[in-house]
């Protein structure tokens, strides 16, 4: 079983991550790249296509991308564009993304001009959750269904969409079960492993992933993670962090990452779709508007969610690793710091690049934060 677990953990690695996509295409089916987690993947899956989460290259050199990109811009997208220009994403049949922020909105221009992808589609996601915005987003999802139907030459009806939702909800439930086990003093998986497993879900056919994780859960019930520290327990918060090496770095510095608040981690699967809804598009809209991304205006709910996780996962503090030039997250930071301070939750925030870099400096800063947490818990 340990081998099976290792296989799942390494599914999102550079060497493995395209394997399922190529197999899928080998069967004559299409693969659609998904750039962020505001895109309702269920629609793509319902059309018999594979939604495949796009990552950027993890290498440092993005010089080709920077010919086009301006300075002080999303490092994640710089690295994705570098991958596009190096032909690493040429195999994708399509690419779908949201208006997550202005960087994402403008990214379409690059992708359309510089890639070979046949379908480039932006789905518009509102910035708040209200009856009006749900209806609007549901209409946008219906438009998206039409686009995918035409692109895939496949019919998506309510039944096929509900079936896809059921598969995805099952995956979400399984991931939540795995996360529940992280509440333990010594959890079955490290923070890095947990992130790697969540990322595996985004590059594998979801039913196959579900089968793998379902089979592993009884083993995880008994497993004890091979971690160097069980204290202090830290909640790691970030966005667009898809390289588990960052989480490993935090844990190696001297703590246990017991929970995360990341769009590539918990926030990717935490909310379920209301399966009972008469209109599956509306149900999807409702679900995706609860993404708790800093670009959504529900900052208070985002803070409350974070504080709730801090309590439930018995973490001693929150470590925020904001990607440099992620403006929405940067603007939310003082708000969040204030809320956490009011709640007596220690917090530290450091900037990071997309690829693993400045390791020494980050280690020193994180180390100082962990020392503070240790002295607080000891005192």
């Amino acid at each position, binding site marked *: 079983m340990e081998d099976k677990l290792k296989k799942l953990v390494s599914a999102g690695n550079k060497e493995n991550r395209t394997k399922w996509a190529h197999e899928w295409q080998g069967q004559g089916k299409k693969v659609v790249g998904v750039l962020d987690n505001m895109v309702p993947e269920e629609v793509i899956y319902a059309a018999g296509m594979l939604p495949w989460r796009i990552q950027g290259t993890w290498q440092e050199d993005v010089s080709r991308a920077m010919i086009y990109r301006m300075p*002080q811009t999303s490092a994640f997208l710089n690295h994705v564009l570098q991958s596009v220009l190096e032909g690493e994403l040429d195999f994708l049949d399509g690419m779908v993304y949201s208006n997550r922020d202005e960087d994402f909105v403008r990214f379409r*221009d690059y992708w359309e001009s510089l890639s070979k992808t046949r379908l480039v589609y932006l789905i518009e996601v509102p910035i*708040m959750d209200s009856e009006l915005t749900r209806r609007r987003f549901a209409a946008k999802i219906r438009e998206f269904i039409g686009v995918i139907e035409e692109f895939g030459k496949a019919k998506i009806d309510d039944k096929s969409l509900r079936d896809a939702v059921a598969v995805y909800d099952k995956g979400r439930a399984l991931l939540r079960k795995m996360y529940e086990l992280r509440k333990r003093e010594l959890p079955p998986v490290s923070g890095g492993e947990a992130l790697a497993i969540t990322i595996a879900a985004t590059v594998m056919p979801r039913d196959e992933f579900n089968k793998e994780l379902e089979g592993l859960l009884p083993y995880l019930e008994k497993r004890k993670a091979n971690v160097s520290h069980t204290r202090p327990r830290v909640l790691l918060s970030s966005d667009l962090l898809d390289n588990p090496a960052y989480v490993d770095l935090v844990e190696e510095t001297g703590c246990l990452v017991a929970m995360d608040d990341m769009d590539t981690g918990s926030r990717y699967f935490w909310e379920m779709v209301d399966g009972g809804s008469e209109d599956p598009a509306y149900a999807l809209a409702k679900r995706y508007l609860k993404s708790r991304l800093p670009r959504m205006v529900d900052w208070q709910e985002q803070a409350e969610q974070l504080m709730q996780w801090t309590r439930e996962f018995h973490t001693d503090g929150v470590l925020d690793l904001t990607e440099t030039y992620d403006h929405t997250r940067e603007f939310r930071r003082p708000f969040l710091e204030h809320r956490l301070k009011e709640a007596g939750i220690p917090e530290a925030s450091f900037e990071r690049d997309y690829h693993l870099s400045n390791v020494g400096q980050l280690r020193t800063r994180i180390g100082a934060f962990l020392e503070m947490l240790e002295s607080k818990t000891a005192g």
Partner: protein
Amino acid sequence: MNLIDASIEMTKGRLKKIGENPDPRRLRSNRLGYEIELKQFYEVQEAWRQGKPLSMGVGGTLAKAMGLQRVDYPLLVGSFPQEVPKYFQTVRNMGWPEHICEFVTLGLAAATVGDAPPLSLLLAEKEECTVATYAQMALTEHFNVPLFAIDDPLDYNEESIKYVADQLGEFIEFAERNVPGIKYDQDRHLELLEWSRIGFSYIRREWELRKLVPLPMTVWDSFQMPMMPDASAEGVKYLRTRVEEIEERAAKGVDQEEKLRVLWIWVAPFYANFLGLMDSKGVAIPHAVSGGTGWQNGRRGAIGDEKEFGRKLSPLEEEARMQMSWSWRSRGRMWEDEILFACQDLKCEAIIYFQFTGCKLTSHPARMVADRAEKELGVPTFIISGRSMDPTSLPAPEFESRLTEFLDMVMAQKGRG
């Protein structure tokens, strides 16, 4: 420094200078524009003193119709470069990112240190300009005032306009419920929109005049596209007088040689004397793109236009249309198309693209615009990055020498060196 009091003194000084020693090359009608500005500063000063509701983010006509006094923080700071380092420090102290659009953050910083009036209500509109939206959300926390967010769609069409108008309706209810002294008056709104409609017709007339070679106005008068300064009889009078004056100059003939026509995008390093440089070299700027080109030339978003969607829009739909017609807030292609159209329509021979630090919406497309302008129009583009109020990243002498190099090169290619 109280920026409102200082702005009043500065505007009074400008008016005195125009009255005593007018520059014969500049438009006489500028005086009317400054008088309107002065009146607006007095209104803000009075509202601040009396504790009347102050807001930012709400469109000018809607704000007036709701009895709200609008404060334009970014414009306040731009006139006082000596205060800029202090406001940058405030931005850092607040924990906000500093490598973003100074127009937004420095204005907010001025408000947080008490140099600009505090707010009673905020409208954060998601215009894809995340800086403006989220800075306003951050400011809500500071002032502890109600915030209403509006979700602006990307596509400019009737459905999107209706969606935004519905949200504006909800905003009005929210504001009336939460801020004492606010009451929306639809008749007043209609009246204000009518003034705006007339005003915009003069703006479109000015667009036509900007096609003339040589351009019948100096770079100082052409660089800033005319805006509707105030939805009022005075605002309309200013725009009408301005257009008539330009027409008069064109009829008389311009005796200055025009060596090159340049389209400017988008803001500029205002600490540098780039306009003086352009003027000394005989370079005209028929248009500085700010995203409002659509309503400036009447191709999109004109108030009162019943043909655009085949029907008359409601007052709130008109507000939504105005807001949504800004091309930078939409998909990149709309921004690019608008620039290329303006370049061709106004017979521009080169583009200067100022890649404004932190403004991802306008800076990202620079290379795409340059490629398309070269390929589709045979027009060269000079791309340069920097900030508008902070000379440390791009010192004025460096900017001016690189700009000179580019202008000389294009003029030499055209045999006009």
